């Protein structure tokens, strides 16, 4: 591996679309890991499409009680008119399940958006500058960890909408309570990465050059610190959905006239279970399970694929033996980045510390 021989070989760059996150991982994966990722992506994709096209897909409105032939009637068994039956309140179950995906996705987006910017900014500043600010923020975040999200959500619901559960209040209550719990997570991850990156030679080199703190933070630290975000992003999205469903289930959910919400429907179907009416509880419950499963599968497989030790590879066959690339076999059993998501740039990095996975 002399300098001359490697200089001669010109590595062609992969097309842009294959280097995008998720697409890159999908191409990289094989076997069971690929299966997990594909299943997760399909479920998540169906969920997102359902949310977008809910008005077209749903046979009825989410608060519709009567059709052309008068009232739907309560607790009707699945039939040609109501594919999944009707609820105790007389709504069409299929329509409620489909419309519910819209509410779910809104909560996820709002919760993640609210928390990600604050968490990342705080983590960056805290990790980069250190000192008393860092210590105070870490203590606050530790304290927030001890706070039950559901309790916070209830309080928020009361504060925002005075306990009345309209669409806006319900979504915001769930989103804000999740935000408060999530900010520390983003904070922690970004802070740990920042502290690590701060000691890297390229940051020192920028300091030797006389680059300003702002320039170092945003040009050199931030972009390298965000590798793990896609993973937390997926985990938090599923947690957001669970909190919303939990709120609905204990009776602080969104009124059926404002929006469809799976947790609320589950709550109302409690009494049906014992009387043999299975369709009212099964389908909203299934929707929650599937969506959480799908998103978690995506997150988990992204995490596995990001870790070279967990990633499975094609077994070396007799054909297609590539010439030796020293960098990759330099340290076969060595210490390799345990947590980072490489994102679009799969840099073969060796990391000495063990930042723990946040899952």
């Amino acid at each position, binding site marked *: 591996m002399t*300098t001359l021989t490697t*200089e001669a070989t010109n590595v062609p760059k992969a097309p842009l679309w294959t280097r995008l996150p998720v697409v890159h991982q999908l191409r990289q994966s094989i076997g069971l890991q690929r299966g997990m990722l594909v299943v997760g992506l399909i479920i998540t994709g169906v969920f997102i499409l359902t949310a977008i096209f809910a008005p077209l897909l749903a046979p009825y409105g989410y608060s519709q009680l009567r059709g052309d032939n008068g009232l739907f009637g309560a607790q009707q068994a699945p039939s040609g008119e109501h594919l999944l039956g009707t609820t105790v309140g007389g709504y069409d179950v299929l329509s409620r399940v489909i419309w519910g995906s819209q509410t779910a996705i809104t909560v996820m987006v709002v919760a993640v958006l609210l928390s990600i910017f604050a968490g990342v900014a705080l983590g960056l500043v805290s990790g980069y500058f250190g000192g008393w600010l860092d210590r105070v923020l870490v203590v606050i975040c530790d304290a927030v960890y001890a706070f039950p999200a559901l309790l916070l959500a209830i309080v928020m619901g009361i504060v925002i909408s005075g306990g009345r559960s309209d669409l806006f209040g319900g979504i915001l209550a769930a989103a804000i309570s999740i935000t408060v719990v999530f900010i520390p997570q983003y904070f922690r991850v970004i802070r740990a990465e920042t502290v690590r990156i701060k000691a890297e030679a390229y940051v020192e*080199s920028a300091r030797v050059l006389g680059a300003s703190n702002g320039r170092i933070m945003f*040009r050199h630290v931030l972009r390298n610190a965000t590798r793990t975000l896609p993973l937390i992003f997926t985990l938090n999205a599923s947690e957001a959905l669970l909190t919303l469903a939990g709120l609905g289930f204990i009776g602080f959910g969104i009124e059926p006239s404002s929006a469809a919400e799976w947790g609320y429907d589950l709550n109302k179907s409690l009494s049906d279970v014992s009387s043999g009416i299975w369709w009212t509880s099964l389908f909203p419950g299934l929707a929650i399970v599937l969506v959480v499963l799908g998103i978690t599968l995506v997150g988990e497989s992204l995490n596995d694929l990001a870790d070279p030790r967990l*990633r499975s590879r094609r077994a070396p066959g007799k054909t297609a033996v590539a010439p030796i690339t020293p960098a990759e076999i330099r340290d*076969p059993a060595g210490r390799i980045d345990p947590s980072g998501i490489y994102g679009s740039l799969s840099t073969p990095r060796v990391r000495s510390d063990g930042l723990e996975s946040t899952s």
Partner: protein
Amino acid sequence: MTDVVRIDNLNVTFATDGGAVKAVDGVSLRVAPGEVLAIVGESGSGKTVTAKTILGLLPETAIARGAVILSSKDGSNSNDVLAVSKQKLRQLRGTDVSMVFQEPSTALNPVFTVGWQIAEGIRSHGEFTRKQARAKAIEILGRVGIPDPESRVDYYPHQFSGGQKQRVVIAMALVLDPGLIVADEPTTALDVTVQAEILDLLRRCRDEFGTAIVLITHNMGVVADLADRVVVMYEGKIVEEALAQELFSNPQHDYTKRLLGSVPHVGHGTTRASARLAAREPDWVDQAPVVVADHLEIQYPGRLGKPGFTAVDGVSFVIRSGEVLGLVGESGSGKTTIGRAMGGLTRVTGGSLTVHGHEMNGFKERAFKKVRSDIGFVFQDPASSFNPLLTIAECVAEPLVVHGRAANPRAARKRVNELLEAVQLPRTFGDRYPHELSGGQRQRASLARALALEPSLLIADEPTSALDVSVQAKVLELFAEIQAEFGFAALFISHDLAVVDILADRIAVLYKGKLVEEGTGAEVLGAPKDPYTQRLLASLPVPDPAAQALRRGELLLLRAAG
């Protein structure tokens, strides 16, 4: 007698993201009892993979084909490591073959005493009581030269120094009296003076225990010191195999010649340095120096209530314009700290350090920023000195942008191309990302970045210690050329006397934060006055078995005297 290990036509293939990669290609070799076989080669040549195969330590992503026949010390039974069951393999490890790792501080478990760790190995291989195992551990610790083994057996790894830790690791390898020890770069992580001691110990392993050793190293001096026979590997294949004496005196293969030719020798640079001194103007000495350190003291703050750690203690030196000062010392001697202080990365706590007339003791970042454009810095680790998300061109343009010489990286591209050509990199490399370059190429790019503002002072902190020998030779050559062309003053930090000798006009030797000797290369290397410098010089193994044997004798005398 039968060979302790015989490798026949070994092929090892790794599954990687980029498809299958052949690491070892048709390697056959044998090791006789009591023989030291050195496997040399650059990183990626497959030497470590070959050695790990002997212990069956390949990761799951690897597939090995061929045969590795391992015999026990008395020759009573042989096994093919690649074919035996996992259980059998566990029995073989430790009794027939054992391993000494590169980094002693990670090879030992920090939460158990060394005695426990040695006993663990003994007890997993036979019917020993706790007491017997402990007695055996004490005995073996004594034999590898740990003083007072009865009490030190209960010490934890952190209570030993680096060299002693490596002794403990060797003790663990020896305790079951295996016929073969695989030593993977056993001295790379150690200082030169400690390295000499460990090499002595390994020699004793062979002589007293009759153990054969497979020594993996990239250091030709170590090979000359210890090996009986040498195998040279290149790109997964064996290119040459010869007795050590023969290989050094009469290398056959081109690659071996190149490898031996690029090993730096002490004493080669002194003529160049004196020629340069003669060429300087007569009033050069009277010109204002670039860097003046006067009783420089740097202290790292201690924990609450404890005194701080003094890394640099009363060091005085001068770097004049256009002069290269080589700073040599072991790890922990404070050499890197001095370099970092000159670059404004570490605070000076006492004495005075002036860089370009700017006092560094109590400096303000704002006032120092102007001076920074006149300082270049090359870091040790080429892997981490570039932002992985920026292209090489963007990284090299960074100093130009920060100091307002260019509006953005694109505007600086013309200058960046000039710089890349100055360090002998093709301009197209500017569009690549750092991980797409090899270590040597990255270090060139790092040099280009340091030179971007045409500084009159360059600080190079071990710029070649992470590189292979042949790459190191090229980078050093380039450094010398560029220094002659640009004429900057430089502080060249290294732990390797031979490397410093190639470049430096003057050499300063640091020992435990104090400057023990300073002078021209001829003075320091030719007639060292300080006992530490003498020991350092004598410990440096030379790539010539006959000369090294003589030097070993000298070192022994020196150690006995000191």
